[in-house]
């Protein structure tokens, strides 16, 4: 019957000065079937509003007429809705529309195929070009590598020849004594003097 409230509405309810200890607020359907009747309504007998028989007869007649008309209208509208649906699906215009749509579809499919063929040709050309480019690059790279190989071989041969040339001046076991005596006989002087202007003086004090 009563709802206990809490929160902000407590302040409002307090202002309204409740007599009970618990703060309650009024809710729709306050009284349950076991609550006693209020004092002011003790001897009350609920009476429905008075019905005028003449008016009632007239009203009943009007209602029957109204319901008849409403039923007729409803059936009419139902028939109209059905007819519209039928016309939509199997009417005179439906076939034409279907035919037009089929034609459009065929035209679009043809156009699509044309486009596909065109793109295919372009694609083939492009792929061919790319393949040729790749082959050319490969060939060039091979040539380059060959050239580099040749160059390196030549370098190595030159090095070998230089080494052979220098090998003639090497000191071996047979030359050892001879070269030592030669070195002792000709002392070489590596000292020199240079000044800021770049004049070189090779004559120095011999030891």
């Amino acid at each position, binding site marked *: 019957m009563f709802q206990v409230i809490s929160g902000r509405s407590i302040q409002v309810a307090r202002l309204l000065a409740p007599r009970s200890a618990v703060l309650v607020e009024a809710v729709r359907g306050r009284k349950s079937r076991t609550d006693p009747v209020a004092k002011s309504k003790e001897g009350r007998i609920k009476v429905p509003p008075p019905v005028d028989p003449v008016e009632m007869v007239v009203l009943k007649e009007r*209602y029957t007429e109204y319901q008849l*008309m409403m039923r007729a*209208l*409803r059936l009419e509208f*139902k028939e109209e809705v*059905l007819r519209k649906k039928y016309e939509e699906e199997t009417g005179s215009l439906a076939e034409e529309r279907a035919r037009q749509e089929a034609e459009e579809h065929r035209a679009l499919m043809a156009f699509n195929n044309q486009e596909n063929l065109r793109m295919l040709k372009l694609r083939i050309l492009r792929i061919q070009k790319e393949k040729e480019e790749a082959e050319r690059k490969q060939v060039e790279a091979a040539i380059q590598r060959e050239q580099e190989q040749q160059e390196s071989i030549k370098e190595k041969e030159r090095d070998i020849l230089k080494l052979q040339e220098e090998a003639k001046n090497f000191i071996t076991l047979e030359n050892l004594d001879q070269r030592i005596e030669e070195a002792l006989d000709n002392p070489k002087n590596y000292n020199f003097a240079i000044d800021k202007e770049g004049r070189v003086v090779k004559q120095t004090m011999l030891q």
Partner: protein
Amino acid sequence: MVHLSSLLLKKYHGGYVVIRLALAGHKQANRPFYRIVAAYNKRARDGKYIEQLGSYDPLPNIYNEKLVSFNFDRIKYWIGCGAHPTKPVAKLLGLAGFFPLHPMMITEAERRRALTELTATGAEDGLQEGQNVA
């Protein structure tokens, strides 16, 4: 011929379609504005509807008119599919001429006319009595 309403309405939870007034959500106190709406029976009054079929402004405007609008084509479709109009919607459509006049409207008008006649004759009697006395 298949019964059209069952074809169209069995999809939902066993309810039926009604054409009724729903308060448009303007959220202004003391200024109502109704939409005439086709909705399922069990939905809230202002909740999700299937289609809006018109509007109704209950307060008269500056030229003393109450404005109502209807989408007759769609109303015909929904009634053909088995929608029930409520009493106020039926009364409005009766006034518009689309439906026959609702019987309760006629009886209420007659009652009001009887009351006004009573008060008019009462005033005349009072005047006559006053003249006689005078």
